């Protein structure tokens, strides 16, 4: 089970900052991020792909679960 970062409700760029801090601190192999806006999905995807992660996402009710893997 991947760690989960809850970035729901935070406006851009805070969700990306949260992912950036987590990646810098722990460099997790997998990470799930919960967000509630498509723009956050896009921003996290662009950032995570630039750091070598494979990124996928799925809708969960009104939210999105973005999954980072490497």
């Amino acid at each position, binding site marked *: 089970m991947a760690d989960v970062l809850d970035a729901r*409700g935070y*406006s851009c*760029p805070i969700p990306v*900052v949260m992912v950036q801090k987590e990646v810098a601190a722990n460099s997790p192999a997998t990470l799930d991020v919960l967000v*509630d806006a498509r723009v956050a999905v896009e921003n996290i995807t*662009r950032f995570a792909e*630039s750091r070598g992660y494979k990124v996928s996402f799925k809708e969960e009710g009104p939210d999105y679960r973005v999954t980072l893997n490497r």
Partner: protein
Amino acid sequence: MARKINPWVIAAGAVVGIAAVLLTAFGNPANMGFCIACFLRDIAGATKLHTAAVVQYVRPEIIGLVLGSCIMSLATKEWKARAGSSPAVRFLLGMIVMIGALVFLGCPLRMVIRMGGGDLNAFVGLAGFFVGILIGIFFLRKGFSLKRTYEATKSEGFALSGVMIALLVLLIAVPSIFVFSESGPGSKHAPLILSLAVALAVGALAQKSRLCMVGGMRDAVMFRDFNLLLGFVTIFVFVLLGNVILGRFTGFSTYLQPIAHASQLWNLLGMVLVGWGSVLLGGCPLRQLILAGEGNGDSAVTVLGMIVGAAFAHNWGLAGSAASLADGVYKAGGIGTNGKVAVFVGLAVLLIVSVWNIAKKKESKVK
């Protein structure tokens, strides 16, 4: 690793650039095809929130931008009513960003349009804007946040769009309740239907592309993500090309630029306010309009704050006055004492808001 470029950003940048030149050719003030700060200020004037006679008009561009975003986000199912992220602080930040923009004489979008028009004063503004963004980034990295939003009722999400529809209906049905400038920038405008149509298209594209003047530099510095910056550069290039093609470009200069002044310290500091405040808000004034259209109640409050800020800017004489040449007499324009004080008050408020909202502990920790 290379990042994918979002073609929508380039498309939006190109359309904004062309639209800005086009609207100016059809009557909007020079180097002001689009200016969110100026146009909100004109609406504040038209509704008599301030009485500066030269800047009063109900700008259909503002109405179109909000509704264009609303329609596009409804069509792509991105529309979502949300609110609750420090609305009162956002209102204040909106006021401060507006006052900074009116000291400089333009929002970040008009700054780029002025740059493309050959106004070197706007490059000084750009330097200030960048400094402001860097200060904002410093606090973001320290953990600054205005806390999260929550799902809201549909009425919250449609509030500003509703106000815009009401403005449009009143503008068409009973224009006599508004005041319209008879001279000055407020008297210069493209035909209503053209302004509205162009702004609807730009609003839709800006929503789709996430175009944001502050986001470009912020993401480039913070994440080495140049996606949004590309939109910024595209607008500049298209405005410059458009001006050259229409024969309006007369070279780069600081002297007697349209609706601008050459008080460089205040051009710089005004845009420091705008850059810093916009980073704290999470987007430039244009982006706030677009987010409000998407159902974001906090951005709607920010827009209302900007309108009130514009009213104060003119009621208290905080706004910059443009350089002018009348009957051979050159007036430098610039900023009065009130405006200078307001800039420093604004900087102080931004500092307090920035420091006060740094999260003590990592609340967003992995759980």
